[in-house]
C-alpha cells in the first residue's frame, strides 16, 4: 500500500460530514450550554438549536480559521446569548423574575459531583461558569477559549482565576455553614 503524499492542509483534505462532526462534539456543546444555563432541559433545547444553526452554516465553516469544536462553541454561545436576551426582554415585559436554574435534588453539572461543588458552581454567574467550563471541563487552551469568548487570552486567565477563587470560597463557606 503506497503511503499517501502528505499535504500541508490536512483539514481541507479531511472533509467530513456534518453529522460525524456534530456527534463527535455533541457532549462538549451540551456541557458548555449546561454550564451557561445551569438547566439540563434548556441546555438540551439550546444544543439542538445550536446544531440546527451549525447545519445551516456548515458550508461557511473554514477549518483553517479554527477547529470545529471552537466553531460549535461559538455558535452555542451565540444561541445561549440570544436566549438570555429574549428571556430578559420577556422578564422586563412581564415584570417577573424566575430563576433559570431549577432547584433540583440531583446534581446538575455532573452525575458524580459532590453537592457542595454542584451548589458552588450553581452559585456562580453564567459568565463565571462559562470560563470554567471552557478551560476546566472542555480543557480548551487559553487562546481557543479567548476566541470563543471574543476576548484576549489574558482576560480569560483573569476571569478564570476569579471564578475559581469564588468557587473555592463558596465551597469552603458551604462546608463551614
Amino acid at each position, binding site marked *: 500500500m503506497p503511503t499517501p503524499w502528505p499535504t500541508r492542509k490536512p483539514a481541507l483534505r479531511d472533509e467530513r460530514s*456534518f453529522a460525524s462532526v456534530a456527534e463527535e462534539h455533541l457532549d462538549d456543546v451540551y456541557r458548555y450550554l449546561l454550564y451557561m444555563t445551569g438547566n439540563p432541559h434548556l441546555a438540551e433545547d439550546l444544543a439542538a438549536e445550536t446544531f440546527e444553526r451549525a447545519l445551516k452554516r456548515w458550508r461557511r465553516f473554514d477549518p483553517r480559521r479554527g477547529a470545529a469544536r471552537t466553531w460549535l462553541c461559538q455558535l452555542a454561545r451565540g444561541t445561549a446569548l440570544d436566549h438570555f436576551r429574549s428571556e430578559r426582554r420577556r422578564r422586563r415585559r412581564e415584570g417577573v423574575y424566575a430563576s*433559570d436554574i431549577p432547584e433540583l435534588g440531583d446534581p446538575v453539572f*455532573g452525575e458524580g459531583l459532590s453537592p457542595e461543588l454542584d451548589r458552588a458552581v450553581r452559585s456562580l454567574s453564567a459568565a463565571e461558569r462559562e470560563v470554567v467550563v471552557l478551560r476546566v471541563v472542555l480543557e480548551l487552551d487559553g487562546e481557543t477559549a479567548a476566541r470563543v469568548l471574543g476576548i484576549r487570552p489574558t482576560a480569560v486567565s483573569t476571569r478564570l482565576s476569579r471564578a475559581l477563587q469564588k468557587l473555592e470560597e463558596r465551597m469552603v463557606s458551604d462546608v463551614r455553614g
Partner: protein
Amino acid sequence: MSEASYLVELREGAPRAPEVLRELVRELPPTRQARTIPPIRPLLVAGTGIAVAVAVVAAAISGIHGSGSSNQGARAVELRATRDFSPQIPSHGAAASGAYRAAPGLTAPSRLQSQDVSMSMRVKDLSGATQSAVRTTRRLGGFVAGADYSTGSNTGYSRLGLRIPIANLQQAIASFTGLGTILSQHISVADLQTGLDQLNARIATARKAGHKKQVTRLERRRAALVREGTYAKVALQLTTTKPTAKHVVPSRFDRFWDNTKDILGKEAIGVLYFLVIAGPFIFLAALALLGERARRRRADHRLLEETG
C-alpha cells in the same frame, strides 16, 4: 478539598449529552463540507495583490510603449538638438552652419533681407574666444557695433554686437561655433525687398515730376534700407558658466523606467487622492464597527454576569 481535586471532579463528572439529543444529531443529513462562500479576508488580500499587480503591469506596459525603439529615441534627441542647440551636442562648424542652412526657407539671396542672428555659447577661454570672434568679424568685412565684457572669480561673460556682411554670415557663424559649445541660437529674417521696390517706384515718379528734393530724401532712405540689408546683426554671447546638470541621452531602459515611474506615480497619486477623500469615512466606519463590537461584547458579558 484541594483545588486540584475539585477541578478533577468537575472534569470527570462532566455530564454526557442526553440520548434524545444524540439521536437527533445522528439523524442530521450527511452534508458534505463544501465551501461555497469564500472567506473575506483572503479575498481582500488577493484583491489588493491583484490590483497592485495590475497597476504595476499597466505601468510597465505603458513604459514599454512610451520608451519606443532606440532609433526613435535617438531621432527625437537629434531633432531637439537641431531645434534648441542643447549643450550636450558638441559644436562643429559644419554642423552649426548646417543648422543655419536648415533655417532655409527664410533666406533668399535674390531678395534684400535683414537678418538678425543671436548665439549663446559656452567657452573655456573667454578672452581668447572674444578676441577670435572680433578678428573673424573684421576679416569677413564686418565690424563690432557694441561689446560688453565681464569676468569674475569663477564665471565670466562677453556680449558682442556685431555687423557682418550677409554674404559672409554663414562663414562667420561656422567660425563662431568653433569657439565652444552652442547653448542656443536664434535667427530671424525680415524681407526688405518690398519696401525697396516701393521706394524705387516713388523715386522714379519723383524724378519724372522733377522733385529733386524728394528724390534726394528717398534715395537716402533707400541707401539706409540697402545698408540694413547688407549687414546682418549678430548678437554673440559667450560665457564660461557650466550647465547645472549634464544632460545624458537616455537609453531605452531609462525611458521605460521613467515612463513606468511616471505612471506608478500617477497611480499612487490616484490612490492617495482616494484615501484622502475616503480615508476619514473608512476610518470612522471602522471605528464605529469596532466600537459596536466592543459595546456588544460588554453587553453580552454584563448579561451573563447578571444571569445566575
